[in-house]
């Protein structure tokens, strides 16, 4: 089992996400994280899905997703074939604000993006391991809430969806 990023370029139609995830569900492959956004091409949507599975399985999944009428093209990558980031938000009670916290924030290259009367929100971008490490530390600062996005990823190989659309 390995971690893979499945990257799909699709039309932006109702139900497309449903159709895509059904292919994972049917094969009993759990989706670790998922993001959807627009892409560089007008009207082309991209879905990025992180899974832990075997290479055989991920190849099958990619081929099956390509059979979906509104999927333009699917790819899969190992972690070293993509540049990816995740964003994490941490909600900390105002009472925890002290020099110790400030040090942690600096150390992790995190930043405070919002300060309210009762809490502050810290943001950090990075890989899961890093945002998780910060989470562990912030538990000592009575963290109130934590949320992390799925990965957004761009591929290192140079082929583009544009080339595919134009040929």
């Amino acid at each position, binding site marked *: 089992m390995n971690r893979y990023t499945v990257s799909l370029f699709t039309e932006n139609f109702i139900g497309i996400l449903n*159709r895509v995830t059904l292919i994972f569900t049917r094969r009993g492959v759990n989706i670790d994280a998922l993001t959807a956004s627009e892409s560089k091409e007008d009207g082309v949507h991209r879905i990025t899905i992180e899974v832990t599975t075997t290479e055989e399985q991920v190849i099958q999944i990619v081929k099956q997703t390509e059979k979906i009428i509104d999927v*333009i093209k699917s790819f899969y990558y190992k972690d070293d074939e993509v540049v990816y980031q995740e964003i994490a938000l941490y909600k900390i009670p105002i009472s925890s604000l002290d020099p110790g916290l400030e040090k942690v924030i600096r150390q992790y290259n995190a930043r405070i993006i919002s300060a309210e009367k009762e809490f502050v929100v810290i943001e950090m971008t990075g890989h899961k391991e890093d945002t998780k490490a910060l989470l562990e530390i912030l538990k000592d600062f009575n963290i109130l809430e934590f949320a992390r996005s799925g990965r957004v990823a761009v591929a290192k190989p140079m082929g583009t969806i544009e080339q595919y659309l134009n040929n």
Partner: protein
Amino acid sequence: MKDSRIRGAEIVIKSLVAENSEYIFGYPGGAIMPVYDALYDYADQIKHVLTRHEQGAIHAAQGYARVSGKVGVCMATSGPGATNLITGIADAMIDSTPLVCITGQVASALLGTDAFQETDVVGFSMPGTKWNIQVRRVEDIAPAIAKGFHIARSGRPGPVLIDITKDAQNDLGEFNYVPCLGIRSYRPYPKVKETQVAQAAEVINSAKKPYVLYGQGVVIGKAEEELKAFLDKTGIPAACTLLGSGALSEDHPQYVGKLGMHGNYAPNMLTNQCDVLIAIGMRFDDRVTGDLKRYAKQAKVVHLELDNAEIDKNVKAEVAVLGDCKESLPMLTEKVNQNSHEEWLKEFRTLEEKEKSAVVSLDLLPTKSGLTMGEVIRYINDYKKDDAILVTDVGQHQMIAWRYFKYKTTRTQVTSGGLGTMGFSLPAALGAQLADLNRQVVCVVGDGGIQMTIQELGTIMQTQSPVKVVLLNNNFLGMVRQWQQLFFDKRYSFTELDNPDFIKIAEAYNMKTSKVTEREDLSDSVAEMMIHDGPYFLEVVVEKEDNVFPMIPTGCSVEEVRLS
């Protein structure tokens, strides 16, 4: 100025007419009533067949599509009407049958409110359709239908579902039908690569014992002639899958038989002896391969296939030729050497003799008193024309009929292969018959399966389709009983049936009938049925506990075929 707009419901019908649809198989209800109302004025342009159940409608559309090669159309109302289509949708998906299913839906303002007869049929059918869509605006109806037809029939065909809200059916819109010619995210026919063909030719040219397996892809691609040309030049022995039957005449000198669990002995055994396995338009279903770990491991596999997801799915290909075999086969035929494989073919013929004495002769020329299913098929062969269509249900009779029916021409085989849907045959036979009234259609069905869609005798009556129904009655869910006998210590748990008087039922539907219990009556009854020019119902009471052999038990290798 006169308003040129028409109702959405009429746009539905005009779109179907624009697609040259000949038949709609359907069943009305509240949410589709505007379309039925519009249909009333189009009886001269499109025929509607009122089945007795929506499952009957979709299986009939499947039978029609499989015989005609065109898109089958079926229609149902929302809620229960739509959900009754689901089995047929799944069946059409796995057997690659082109269908457009149109369902009515509650008015768009009511969507999501649990309105009367509202079901999320788009959600229900999403994993089972090639494509589906809900249309909520009148202007989207024609484009959706155009797109649906294009998707259903192109590439690897499949079922499409178009759910149309009642307000869209009632609203007024312009009708301007533009057929769909392409979708940017959908490439149904990948271009065949010369390099792949060249590699395939090289592997085939150096083979000592090459072996061709052909499937329904050849029929779908209308590549029967191309297959024959390839075989004629190369001299390679060829075996077929269940749905590939008929793509090549069984009279062809290199035809060696049928593959799979209840296929022929030689084609299964020798799969593990060949050195190059050439799979053409087939998908290595588990009923064909048995245990994959012991399947053709010695062979280099060349796979000609249109659906990229089938390549390397079950069996790894040494050379994959992606594309329509209609295109790839002639390219390959040009590059391969003229050859013959007499010695290798003899190996098939030797094993064939073994099957003949151990199984076939007992099935076709039984000496025991009870009637066998095999001898019924033998008589059907005697009286049928070359292009007669065999429609079968699911079970022992399906496998026996398939084994012994003489397939001479293409599109003569209609059965539920991938899904194994009991109840498929009666409505499918009706659809098959309507696709071509000049061809004989024989529906071979079991006493279990017929009772799943027996109401369609009513549709046969109303349409007066000259379908020949052959009920092989063993008073058992025979195939399940066979497994119970072989693998569950003969514990016949809930497989014996107390059956009704089938002849009375058929007579109630005004069918000409006959019932055979004795061997001496069989030939005459089959003959009478085959020349009768209307619907006919023949019940043959067969031996209760006969088994279908050869058999490759689940999980066994193709070499572990049992002859008894």
